[in-house]
């Protein structure tokens, strides 16, 4: 027993994968015949946008920060894409990403240069972006928003009816994330800044540059996630990504990244996003009433976080 625990302690990702397997097994036992290739394919399809938001969130949480503007940025990018699609897909896409870039720059300046607390800064910009989108929507009433076919394929399409297209984007982002975090100087610096900002300063690192780029990347990833989301729903509304805000933080925490920074990684976030998606799927399948669903959801996140703290203490 203690040997198994020691193994899990050394490889927390293993514990997470095991947990995911238990959940999948749970579904199969509760509703035999549920777990089919199609079910797996759908789970991946739905997990992708969450995992892409989680990628940005992982980047900032590793430095001990947080980005609460990701949902507004995702919604905003989706909405801008849909309302500008008439002027050309490429133009609309670029505009959507520019929104991410702009919010990222503002967040980055606030957190990195002006040293505003990340939670406060991004809460503020998130609200502002949300409000700005509402104002913007009132000017855009005339033109009928529509989602470009390319984006619909990205967000809802499947190759040979089984492999979700967004999985390819996700896989590319995941590969890039893992490489960046573990094999590049910038990745090392994210962990370093999260672990001890003062030590980085003394080692001659200009910490603000690291944080600035970090928040820009996070917002860009949020904008990309918004595109995947709107491709999936094929309808741009102003609360599109709202429900993803807290899960984007939760999947990072479940994945074992410390909210104080300096420890964790994207591999955990991937499994975290899958666990949350499967969990939602279980609760929906069991036809649990919404309030009970929320209670269970919260309780499971709490117990996972507690178990994690035990494991890594």
């Amino acid at each position, binding site marked *: 027993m203690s040997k198994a625990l020691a193994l899990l302690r050394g490889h927390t990702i293993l514990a997470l994968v095991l947990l995911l397997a238990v959940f999948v097994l749970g579904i199969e036992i509760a509703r035999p015949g549920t777990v089919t290739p199609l079910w797996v394919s759908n789970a991946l399809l739905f997990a992708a946008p969450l995992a892409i938001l989680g990628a940005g969130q992982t980047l900032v949480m590793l430095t001990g920060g947080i980005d609460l503007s990701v949902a507004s940025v995702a919604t905003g990018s989706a909405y801008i894409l849909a309302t500008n699609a008439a002027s050309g897909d490429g133009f609309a896409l670029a505009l959507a990403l520019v929104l991410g870039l702009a919010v990222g720059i503002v967040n980055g300046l606030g957190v990195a240069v002006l040293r505003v607390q990340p939670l406060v800064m991004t809460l503020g910009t998130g609200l502002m972006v949300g409000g700005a989108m509402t104002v913007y929507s009132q000017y855009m009433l005339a033109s009928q928003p529509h989602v470009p076919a390319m984006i619909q394929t990205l967000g809802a399409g499947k190759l040979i009816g089984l492999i979700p297209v967004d999985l390819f984007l996700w896989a590319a982002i995941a590969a890039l994330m893992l490489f960046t975090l573990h094999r590049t*100087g910038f990745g090392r610096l994210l962990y370093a800044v999260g672990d001890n900002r003062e030590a980085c300063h*003394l080692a001659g690192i200009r910490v603000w540059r690291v944080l600035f780029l970090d928040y820009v990347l996070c917002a860009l990833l949020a904008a990309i996630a918004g595109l995947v989301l709107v491709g999936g729903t094929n309808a741009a509304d102003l609360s599109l990504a709202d429900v993803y805000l807290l899960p984007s933080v939760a999947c990072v925490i479940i994945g074992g990244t410390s909210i104080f920074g300096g420890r964790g990684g994207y591999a955990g976030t991937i499994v975290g996003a899958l666990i949350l998606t499967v969990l939602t799927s279980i609760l929906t399948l069991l036809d649990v009433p919404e309030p009970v669903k929320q209670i269970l959801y919260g309780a499971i996140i709490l117990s996972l976080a507690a178990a994690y703290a035990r494991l890594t203490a």
Partner: protein
Amino acid sequence: MQNGRPVSADENLLLRVTGVAKRFGSVIALRAAGLELHAGEIHALMGANGAGKSTLVKVITGEFPADAGELAVAGAVSVFRSPAEARRAGIVSVYQDPALVPDLTIAQNMRLARVPLEAVRDVMRELGIERLDLTRRAREIDYPHLRLIDLSRALASKPRILILDEITAALPADLSERVFAVVRDWRRRGHSVIFISHRMAEVAALADRATILRDGVTVGVTSTRDAEEKIVDMMLGAEVAKAAAEAPPRAAAGIIRGAAPALEVRDLGFGHTLSGVSFRLGVGEILGVAALEGQGQQELFDCIAGVRRAASGEILANGRALELRHPADAIRAGLVLVPANRLHALLPQRSIRENVALSSFATFRAWGPITMRAERKRVENAVERLSIDRRASAEVRRLSGGNQQKVVIARWLASGFRTLLCFDPTRGIDIGTKRQIYALLREIAAQGASVLLFTSELPEIRLACDRAIVLFAGRITAEMPAAEADEAHLLRAAHGLTAAEPAEAPA
């Protein structure tokens, strides 16, 4: 005063600890540690860094449960499940780090610990710090005084057994003396003290006997009189001691004359703490800085390292004037800092490798892919050169203090530098590691780099440096070659006394 008093066996035995074992995960801190403390005795607990001294103390005070072993107080077997239980049994300790809440005033801190303020005042009077304002917040008070307040609080609860863990590590000589006087007084009243220190001279002067730990095992108990070499041998194990005892190569010849100095400071000023400080550090030279606590040495090092901006004056490296706005500017000019508190320079949750490689990512160019093999080689060279213990290499917070200090130095060895600014690098470090560090500094200097070294342990200036300057109240009051830098001479200058004695001023 020294004590060879025969002790009739058991009735005099106040504390008896036997066979204590303790492991943290895969790290074994104690294997078979024991200690016998008599009533009315000052007992030194000694050992290299990582030998398990602090762990043993924390087992005795109930901070950690032991995995094995037995503890008896005055003959009765006891198990303390918390420091509070140990305190009720009359065992109180003063740990390495001040245990005061920074945002509360001293008086509030005492109330928090339920210690009567009057009793604390009495002890403070004995320590000569009665003028300290108890309504000041702990964070506003300097480190040496915090240690004394900690000590006052501990003594105010009238412990039968007082445990002092490295209390003098950061105390200037004058305050240390007062602590010793109070501790001796405590013994005179029939109480006992367990005293942990790396300073051999202190131990010899203060303690009656010493218990020596090595790798978590009690390897010996000895009277402290004339036992310095014996104790060092026991601490290090015979083999290592022999290697460490070989004198560090005295350089002197290494200094390259004629060239522009590696570092030149001209008329440096910083607030009220530094004024008109000028000196030169030659290429291949080790220049010692001696000072009592708070004479501006911290600010001097910070200004040179780019951590703070000097208000006036110039700093030149290899003849070139520097504009230091950020540590990166100093590092680019080859000036690198090993700060007073090693934890300020370390990433506690990251590996030795990441800690050592950290400074290599300072420029944008290095933000891209890492050449893993080259990095591993560079790091391993530095780690081997410093013989860092790699047992707990995944997280440097699990390393002993000495090994953490080596990791900080290894970072600069791996990245390269011209002048090493070492601020009290051996504070709280065992004698074996200390000798290794000084030997390394000599080696660095012999290879053409320079070292500016502040140390709070005056005898070390003579051992490690070529030349010394003394700071007093923000000014340089003396400069002397190492040969003249004996403790007495340095102490006089450190108290600002040299000017009055022109006969003793060096040529």
